[in-house]
């Protein structure tokens, strides 16, 4: 084994271009790595070895013909809620048992066009509902840094496989922090793009007005490249924004100066109950940015504390309708009944896990007759106030620095009995989804027990270039991202 699985997209691309290795070599190394560690990590749900090697061969052949596709021959893992033609798409739910996707999600088509090798499908919280990947019907995933701890969620499999060098990069989705939080827990880089940047076509919807697909990778530069591949207008998604995609990858240079950049520090994001180690680590990261030339300014996002309430009303309401299609009629699991109503009730009772049921019921309730105005409409109005907070803050600064999570990764099973407690952990990530702007999570240190801690860089809408530049400067002048977990 040549340890190719430990390298980044950029490092591998250089080797491939120089003829120092082939894509088949890379895929073989990654598969060997999966064989060695995934028994412990549990990131993958399905791996199609033959297909991955076949795709790698095609990539090598294309390269021999002179192709310079941006991600030619790089193996990537896919969160299990993206449709890939001919593959299952379980969303970690029993209810999609037997379903074969008849089409490619737009992002999958884009990955194929970029020359990527699709490795396999990775675990997640059922229908992306959760923050620990413990709400998964088909297997448990552990944090590679400490197998007794959660990888975060809902894109826990995506972050865990990248952290464990079981994939070079992965796709995740972020509705309330589901890319950034697992990236932070696993010591990876993750980007939640501006709403509308990346097509949602083929992404099994959790909350349509909040969902965005994004990259999880080992470095900021890798995320930039992958993001560039994923972005772009799609006429199949009415919420897709029709605007040019900057060359995110190329825009990152060796220049590490942050001179002229104003970074906002929101007092509301250093919340009560925050782990002191997290707070200290993030404040150190802020100082580091200052040392690179950035100006630090205080900003206020006064409605942040309402974000969890707003999020759990809007997201569950949308989800209650989005998940109504899982009814046992046209695809997936069916538990028969004497009439359709009985069939629905039984199928959904067996097919959905507890957290999904809980959220569907909450979402159904907040839309129901007599409660709509008090809950849903009110939440939509407070959502406006949260957006306005960001608009005002970005008049004072170019980006906002904050923690990603109040604590490092907690122990498996620690919070599963208390949904509200679990929800409250999303306090630092959900405001960005509600406002629709972009944010990046990258490693900025470790706890005394050796768990990664993440720094969140929040950008204005369509300001991905800015947050990537800041993250890249930070990363080049620190070494957190080079650390690897010892999986035992």
């Amino acid at each position, binding site marked *: 084994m040549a340890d190719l699985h430990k390298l980044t997209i950029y490092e591998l691309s250089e080797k491939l271009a120089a003829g120092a290795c082939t894509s088949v070599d890379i895929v073989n190394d990654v598969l060997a790595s999966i064989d060695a560690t995934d028994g412990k990590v549990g990131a993958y749900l399905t791996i199609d070895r033959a297909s991955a090697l076949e795709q790698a061969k095609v990539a090598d052949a294309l390269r021999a013909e002179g192709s310079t596709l941006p991600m030619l021959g790089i193996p990537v893992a896919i969160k299990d809620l993206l449709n890939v033609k001919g593959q299952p798409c379980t969303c970690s739910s029993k209810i999609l048992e037997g379903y074969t996707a008849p089409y490619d999600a737009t992002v999958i088509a884009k990955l194929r066009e970029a020359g990527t090798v699709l490795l396999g499908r990775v675990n997640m919280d059922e229908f992306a509902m959760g923050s620990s990947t413990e709400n998964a019907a088909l297997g448990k995933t552990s944090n590679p840094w400490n197998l007794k701890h959660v990888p975060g969620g809902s894109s826990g499999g995506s972050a865990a496989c990248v952290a464990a060098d079981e994939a070079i990069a992965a796709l995740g989705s972020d509705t309330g922090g589901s890319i950034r939080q697992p990236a932070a827990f696993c010591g990876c880089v993750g980007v939640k793009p501006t*709403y509308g940047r990346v097509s949602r076509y083929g992404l099994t919807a959790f909350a349509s007005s909040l969902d965005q697909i994004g990259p999880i990778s080992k470095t900021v530069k890798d995320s930039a490249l992958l993001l560039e591949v994923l972005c772009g207008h799609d006429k199949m998604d009415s919420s897709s924004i029709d605007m040019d995609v900057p060359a995110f990858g190329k825009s990152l240079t060796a220049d590490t100066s942050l001179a002229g950049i104003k970074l906002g520090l929101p007092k509301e994001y250093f919340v009560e109950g925050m782990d002191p180690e997290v707070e200290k680590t993030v404040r150190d990261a802020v100082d580091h940015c200052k040392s690179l030339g950035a100006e630090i300014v205080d900003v206020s996002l006064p409605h942040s504390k309402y974000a969890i309430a707003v999020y*759990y009303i809007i997201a569950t309401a949308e989800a209650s309708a989005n998940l109504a299609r899982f009814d046992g009629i046209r695809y997936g699991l069916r538990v028969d*009944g004497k009439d359709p109503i009985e*069939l629905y009730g039984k199928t959904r009772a067996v097919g959905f896990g507890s957290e999904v049921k809980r959220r569907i019921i*909450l979402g159904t309730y907040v839309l129901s007759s007599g409660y709509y105005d008090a809950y849903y409409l009110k939440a939509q109005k407070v959502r*406006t106030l949260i957006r306005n907070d960001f608009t005002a803050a970005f008049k004072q600064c170019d980006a906002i620095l904050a923690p990603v999570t109040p604590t490092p990764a907690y122990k498996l099973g620690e919070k599963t009995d208390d949904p509200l407690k679990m929800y409250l952990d999303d306090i630092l990530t959900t405001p960005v989804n509600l406002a629709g702007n972009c944010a990046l999570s990258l490693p900025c240190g470790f706890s005394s027990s050796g768990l990664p801690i993440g720094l969140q860089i929040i950008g204005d*809408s369509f300001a991905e270039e800015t947050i990537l530049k800041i993250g890249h400067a930070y990363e080049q002048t620190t070494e957190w991202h080079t650390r690897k977990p010892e999986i035992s």
Partner: protein
Amino acid sequence: MSEANEGMDVGYVAKLANIDLTTEETALFQGQLNQVLHYVEQLNELDVGGVEPTAHAFPVYNVLRKDEVGTSLNHADVVANAPAATDGEIRVPKILDQ
């Protein structure tokens, strides 16, 4: 939101959502969701008079498609995905008039 103080009727809402809950689930969710609703009541602190609701993060308008026929799915794939089918149609238990 004063109605929320009474809590929701989980059994009734689960019916609306077409999910059969066990007695244990109903009781468990009742407690957990009432806690969530209680938490959510903090929104009452805010005066949202005159605030427009946000339905879309970035509202654009008139995202239209030309009325041109595209490709449909392969019929065999559609039937293969269905849990039950007869003569190319998807079979369900007898639908009673609602």
